[in-house]
């Protein structure tokens, strides 16, 4: 039984367009009626929902950005009264400009169904024991996995982060069959197993489901060989659903996007032009079922391409390619999004004004590392060694505290780095 809902997963493309048109029109009618922001930006381009006659007309609408979400904090983008909202999540992104996302009872049902569909496609059944090693609370993903797995009837161990040694012990004693974590966390578990002398062959682990940060094929190969399990990729965003936007099928040739709930476009991030299928660009998502927090042409910042060719698995929903980079300056570090602005604000708080700095990201083996390089200038500690050292210590403490893990801070001569490159991501996702 390879499909959770075959009639939807293998729906005829023409029927799917009808479903999408209906969902889009209803969504536009709701947001136009209930959300001031959309009413305003639609009026600016002289658009009323009736003007949308085909899916193609979606192109006329303005994009929705993370800035827009921040500006409407906390509840101004909600399309239903708060009393109809049963769950609130915040994005891991940017706590200085927080974003709150609401879910109605039906949104929760859809999220659960999509996650069940995702897990089922990867081979999870009611006989499985899932260890969810993602942080509950700071992420919405683990809640989604838990609900979806329970919907299938599997057993869930909501482990949260936890120390690798504890995770391994639970994995062995509870007979975990499916591990859900970030890919880097999976490698930390592999190392813990080696240190604890736990042979992965002796475990009953059969599958790993990984996401919330970019990871390449070489990392997949490493996880698969060290843990002796197939590793599958899943993609989502808290503004929509995590998981439940796109996921790999057994063919592992791209991630099927749940087109009965989302419309995907790929655009040129610089011009906003919609690119033809197969071209690489920024993923733009429109929700067609969400009630509490609908998104109309939301710019995800993620770089991908859309493949509309039929998949060997039989599913008809389009596939997006695995996501390895972003088109903005957001860095996904250890599964959490961070911007240089946030770090800049911390530096400014310590120093009075932000110095010139660069963030270098590396991934050594199983964890992302952050190096904060701060340029020494005349204005900025020309020769007071003691002051310099204290500053470095303070920055180290503040940034590490903010992220929850140790960062490296270094002062560098001017000219060491290109001022136009505030982020230098050395990770290669191949």
């Amino acid at each position, binding site marked *: 039984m390879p499909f959770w809902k075959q009639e939807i997963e293998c729906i005829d493309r023409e029927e799917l367009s009808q479903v999408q048109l209906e969902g889009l029109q*209803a969504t536009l009618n709701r947001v136009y009626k209930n959300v001031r922001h959309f009413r305003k930006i639609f009026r600016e381009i002289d658009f009323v929902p009736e003007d949308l006659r085909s899916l193609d007309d979606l192109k006329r609408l303005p994009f929705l950005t993370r800035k827009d979400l921040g500006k409407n904090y906390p509840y101004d983008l909600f399309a239903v009264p708060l009393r109809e909202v049963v769950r609130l999540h915040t994005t891991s992104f940017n706590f200085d400009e927080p974003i709150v996302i609401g879910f109605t009872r039906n949104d929760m049902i859809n999220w659960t169904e999509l996650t069940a569909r995702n897990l089922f496609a990867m081979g999870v059944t009611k006989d499985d024991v899932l260890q969810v090693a993602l942080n509950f609370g700071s992420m919405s993903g683990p809640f989604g996995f838990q609900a979806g797995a329970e919907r299938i009837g599997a057993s869930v161990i909501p482990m949260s982060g936890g120390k690798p040694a504890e995770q391994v012990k639970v994995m062995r004693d509870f007979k975990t069959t499916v591990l859900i974590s970030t890919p880097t966390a999976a490698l930390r578990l592999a190392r813990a197993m080696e240190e604890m002398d736990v042979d992965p062959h002796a475990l009953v682990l059969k599958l790993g489901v990984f996401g919330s940060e970019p990871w390449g094929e070489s990392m997949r190969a490493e996880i698969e060989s060290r843990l002796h399990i197939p590793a599958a990729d899943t993609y989502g965003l808290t503004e929509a659903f995590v998981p439940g936007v796109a996921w790999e099928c057994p063919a592992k040739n791209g991630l099927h996007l749940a087109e009965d709930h989302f419309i995907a476009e790929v655009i040129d991030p610089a011009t906003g032009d919609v690119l033809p299928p197969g071209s690489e660009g920024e993923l733009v998502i429109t929700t067609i079922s969400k009630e509490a927090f609908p998104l109309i042409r939301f710019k995800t910042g993620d770089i991908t391409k859309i493949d509309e060719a039929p998949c060997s698995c039989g599913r008809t929903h389009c596939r997006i390619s695995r996501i390895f980079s972003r088109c903005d300056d957001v860095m996904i570090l250890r599964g959490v999004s961070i911007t240089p602005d946030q770090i800049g604000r911390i530096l400014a708080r310590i120093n009075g004004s932000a110095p010139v700095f660069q963030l270098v990201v590396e991934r050594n083996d199983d964890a992302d590392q952050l190096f904060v390089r701060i340029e020494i200038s005349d204005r900025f500690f020309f020769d007071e060694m003691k002051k310099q050292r204290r500053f470095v210590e303070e920055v180290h403490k503040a940034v590490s505290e903010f992220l929850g893990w140790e960062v490296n801070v270094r002062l560098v001569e001017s000219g060491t780095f290109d001022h136009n490159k505030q982020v230098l991501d050395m990770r290669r996702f191949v």
Partner: protein
Amino acid sequence: MLRLVNVNSNYGLVHVLKNVSLHVGKGEVVTIIGANGAGKTTTLRAISGLQPVAEGQIYLDGKDITGIAAQKLVAMGVAHVPEGRQIFAPMSVHDNLELGGLQVYRRFGRKQLKCEIESMFERFEVLRDRQNQYAGTLSGGEQQMLALAMALMSRPRLLLLDEPSMGLAPLIVKEIFRIIEELQSENGLTVLLIEQNANAALKISDRGYVLETGRIVLEADAEKLLSNPEVKRAYLGREQREIWE
């Protein structure tokens, strides 16, 4: 089976349907709920060719039927039971059924017509008992059953029902919905239903649409609509729930 794309319709200068897109799959029961004047009846009339479509398309099994005359649609398997039980009061129940079976008579002759009427009597026992009475003397519920039976006489594949429960006593309402459910499960009939009594209608439906001032604002599985608080407040009023339960 049925597909509407961007259907617009006007009464004179009043724009009543605004880009209505919806579909009904084969064998599905789908309900449109909405307040008075939302455009529910207009939608059904547009489908069955009784109301001009200003813009947009209506497809039946992939075939464009926009603007096709009502009479022709009956032959194509679409039956419409309008609001307010349109039966012929001064004729007997039996003759009303014969009228509904005109198509059967023309195509298959008298014998088949008799056969069909007999099968209606089997489904609606009360009509058998009343077959020689004038239709006008039937109770409201019986008239609604007659209207339904007349529509079924044309052997439709798609049944359009406009507020079948209107003004009927709770027990009769229950009976009518039971019959609709039976028609779907036993005969594979496809049904598009309009109801003020949204609670009862959604209970026998697969999916539903919420129509608001001529626009579709929500589409979902029937059970999701039933649990949607906004829908509950607006369309599943307390009284109605009590009537049904």
